[in-house]
């Protein structure tokens, strides 16, 4: 041990350096914690979360043309599109079920949709108490996810 090392040990230099480092972390801007239910983390721009069936922003009518392409594109076969013909032989959407419990959020349905009706949103709170609750019907899909807001 040379004398420099010796002095370092005698005057506890390394320990003091350590103390300085931990002390310096006590800044409000160093805090990494997220107060989750109170503040939500921003997710990535291309994050694929809970699905939504978009309505026309003005008329409020569904954008879905019941073409069934999403159902065909889905590798898990979890989308069931129900339709009926109108008098002028046009397809009208009647029911739409989306089984979130089987979904792997690959986004192929979203890509297949020709009218941008089906969309995987950035919302990530899709937990449910029952298996049945994970199967979203047309109403749930159109309303979109409703994450609980916690207040005190």
């Amino acid at each position, binding site marked *: 041990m040379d004398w420099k090392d010796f002095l370092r040990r005698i005057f506890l230099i390394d320990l003091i350096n*350590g103390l300085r480092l*931990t002390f310096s*972390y*006590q800044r409000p801007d160093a*805090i990494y*914690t997220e107060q989750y239910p*109170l503040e939500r983390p921003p997710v990535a721009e291309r994050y694929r979360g809970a699905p939504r069936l978009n309505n026309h922003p003005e008329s409020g009518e569904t954008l879905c043309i019941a073409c069934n392409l999403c159902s065909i594109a889905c590798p898990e076969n979890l989308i069931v599109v129900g339709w009926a013909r109108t008098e002028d032989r046009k397809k009208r959407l009647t029911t739409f079920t989306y089984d979130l419990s089987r979904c792997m959020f690959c986004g192929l349905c979203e890509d297949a949709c020709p009218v941008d009706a089906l969309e995987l949103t950035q919302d990530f709170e899709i937990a449910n108490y029952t298996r049945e609750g994970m199967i979203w019907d047309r109403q749930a899909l159109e309303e979109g996810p409703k994450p609980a807001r916690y207040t*005190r």
Partner: protein
Amino acid sequence: MLQSTVKFLSANPLLLALIKILIIFAVVSGIVAYLVYMERKVLAFMQARLGPMRVGPWGLLQPVADGIKLLLKEDIIPAGADEWLFLLAPAISIFACFTVFAVIPFAGNFYVSDINIGLLFILAVSSLGIYGIILGGWSSNSHYPLLGALRSSAQLVSYEVAAGMALVGVLLFSNSLSMVDIVKRQLSMGVWNVFLQPVAFLIYVIAAVAETNRNPFDLPEAESELTAGYHTEYSGFRFALYFMAEYTNMVVVSCIAVTLFLGGWLRPFANYARLDFLKFTPILATLGAGGFVLWLWLKSSVKLDRYFFIALTACFVVLAILLVYPPVLNALQGIFWFSAKVLAFLYAFIWYRATFPRYRYDQLMNIGWRWMIPLALANLIVTAVLRYFWLSHHAATAVAWLGR
């Protein structure tokens, strides 16, 4: 009314002592509860976390919640345990550390008793506390507690020697074992003992960390090795007693260090009249605390928390206004400086915990026996020699003695 009360109390010193004991017990228990909170908060900040936030504003009610939880938990006595000792052990621990407060002077006029063997009494009683740990570990009839208790006693014995010898260095200057006299002596010498005995101070601080089983010397309860050490088998309120004893020990050790080395209730530079403006520090500190709470109020978005913070700010402002009134300021002067120093000490304890990794057992013994004790001995001898010549007031004596 006030005068008749004072008269009555001075006629019944026993009653006065009883009231003081009640006050000290209540305040220390509260401080210990919030020391746990402070530890969790400071540790969290040093690790870039927030710490408890959910129970009450900024988690301020966390100690209350913890206490209720521990009280309501099942009190388990393991099969094969020595029941009497098992029940007795935590009580010994807590009794030993609370007894020490009897002789600690919190201010020039606020202490339960000033006995002339104060420091000896402290050393004797706080050493009794180890029985709580040993008996608890042994009576649990379990491996980990026994190992923890053995480690703890070995550690305490090793470091008590060094700490004791460091304290003797102070006694050489104060000529008294009475805690009040030790502080008064620092006033008359015009310098705190820490400047006369820096080595002893360092030794005492290290030994104090070891004696309270804190990081980096927390081998008796090293989670990764011994689950929880000597209190592994304890649950419910008995565990709470052990927990409280541990944190009270931290306060005790800090109080002793402050009294012996840092001038107790004295303000910095107590004999320099030119620095008398320092006596307004309590007002500034109160306002500072108020400002900090106001900042929390600005940052908080929760409605209930905001009410609480603004009320707390108001309390601090009222306290500051009260402190402007000279009698109040003078009465709280000693308590303020004492608690400020103790708080700094407690903060340092937490700071060490956040910084240093745990020592290995052989390293611990190495530091204790091969570094601390020789250093304390050398410090004691050097101090004694210097003190001898200083007392005789003749440098010439020293020269003559050396030339002999």
